[in-house]
């Protein structure tokens, strides 16, 4: 049974705490001005260390984040959401992979490295990465994974990253909105200038939602930041001392 009061408090505090307060960088830092950078091939180059808005709840708006207030749950999705209680099993607290949306949602930065053929998310959160082709090829056949199988293609200057074949063991966000193994994510990247990425994520999961829904965000180039190692396992006392439980997945 979910602790509704705690969840409500969490939501309220997440919204107020997260979105009212500017971070040091957002207050003091300004990204460089300049035109959209491009690779020698002419494709838009998204490379850089990017500051992302922290999105613990994808239904909420915040600075540089537009949420989707009323999620269109199917009966299955609504039941999954109602039944979720992180106290009964917290996969991120257990240092299991966050999956694609929760990795993008984290407050820690990500670095993008890119060639004409490949695109790489280097997430600082737990030092995970996702690398995939963006040369227009189709999805291959593989085992379902935490981050799914991604391929990218271009629509003009917009890079469209299409991801399927998720293992269904992750949650969309920190507060725990559900998805199924039928999740189909579309992430659309544009870079209107040197210092910013306009980001849209489309959540399409017919088992969990009756229709696709979106979040739109702005990422900021951080020329003053370098990526740092983040070992979730190094000193995860909360797990070792039993305050966080490892979820039991059906196999």
């Amino acid at each position, binding site marked *: 049974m979910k602790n509704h009061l705690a969840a409500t*408090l*969490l939501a309220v*505090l997440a919204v107020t705490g*997260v979105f009212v307060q500017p971070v*040091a960088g957002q207050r003091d830092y300004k990204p460089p001005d300049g035109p959209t950078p491009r690779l020698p091939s002419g494709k838009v180059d998204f490379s850089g260390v990017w500051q992302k808005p922290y999105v613990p709840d994808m239904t909420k708006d915040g600075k540089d984040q537009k949420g989707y207030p009323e999620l269109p749950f199917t009966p299955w999705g609504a039941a999954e959401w109602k039944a979720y209680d992180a106290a009964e099993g917290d996969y991120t607290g257990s240092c299991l992979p966050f999956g694609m949306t929760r990795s993008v949602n984290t407050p820690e930065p990500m670095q993008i490295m890119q060639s004409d053929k490949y695109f790489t998310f280097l997430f600082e959160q737990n030092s995970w990465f996702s690398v995939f082709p963006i040369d227009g090829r189709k999805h291959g056949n593989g085992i379902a994974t935490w981050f799914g199988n991604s391929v990218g293609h271009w629509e003009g200057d917009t890079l469209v990253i299409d991801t399927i074949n998720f293992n269904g063991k992750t949650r969309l966000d920190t507060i*725990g909105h559900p998805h199924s193994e039928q999740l189909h994510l579309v992430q659309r990247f544009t870079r209107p200038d040197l210092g910013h990425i306009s980001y849209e994520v489309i959540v399409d999961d017919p088992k969990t939602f009756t229709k696709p829904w979106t979040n739109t965000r702005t990422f900021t180039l951080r020329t003053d930041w370098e990526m740092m190692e983040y070992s*979730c396992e190094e000193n995860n006392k909360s797990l070792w001392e039993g305050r966080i*439980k490892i979820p039991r997945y059906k196999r």
Partner: protein
Amino acid sequence: MDFPGYTNRRLVIALAACLVLALVQPTVAHHSFAAEFDANKPVTLKGAVTNLEWANPHIWLYLDVKNDDGSVQPWQCEGGPPNTLTRNGWTKDSLKIGDQVTIEGVLAKDGSKTCNARLVKLPDGRSVFAGSLGGDNPPPPKQPH
């Protein structure tokens, strides 16, 4: 419910803590806050720092809290990710062993002497590791350390 060495006047402190939390802190860095901590159980701890673990995924601060009868109760409190704190200008040396601190936090659900630290204050009123819980916290004041 009152314990020696710290206060837990639930209603007033809960409201005050909610205000503090709402104004000062988000609740989570990367994992579910509610899985481990009880937002309805705020706590204020005063004691001497005995250790500081500056390691991922979160820093841990250890302190000895003196009870009214003179006995000492060890506590441990979770702070933010060291990467975020580092970007905000803090280091492991920002707090010294033996420093007297006041921690505003929230208790763990399991009843252990564990808290999630929201504010860590020195006797002169300076806050250490302000914004300790995530990359979107308010920045600490730049101070010489």
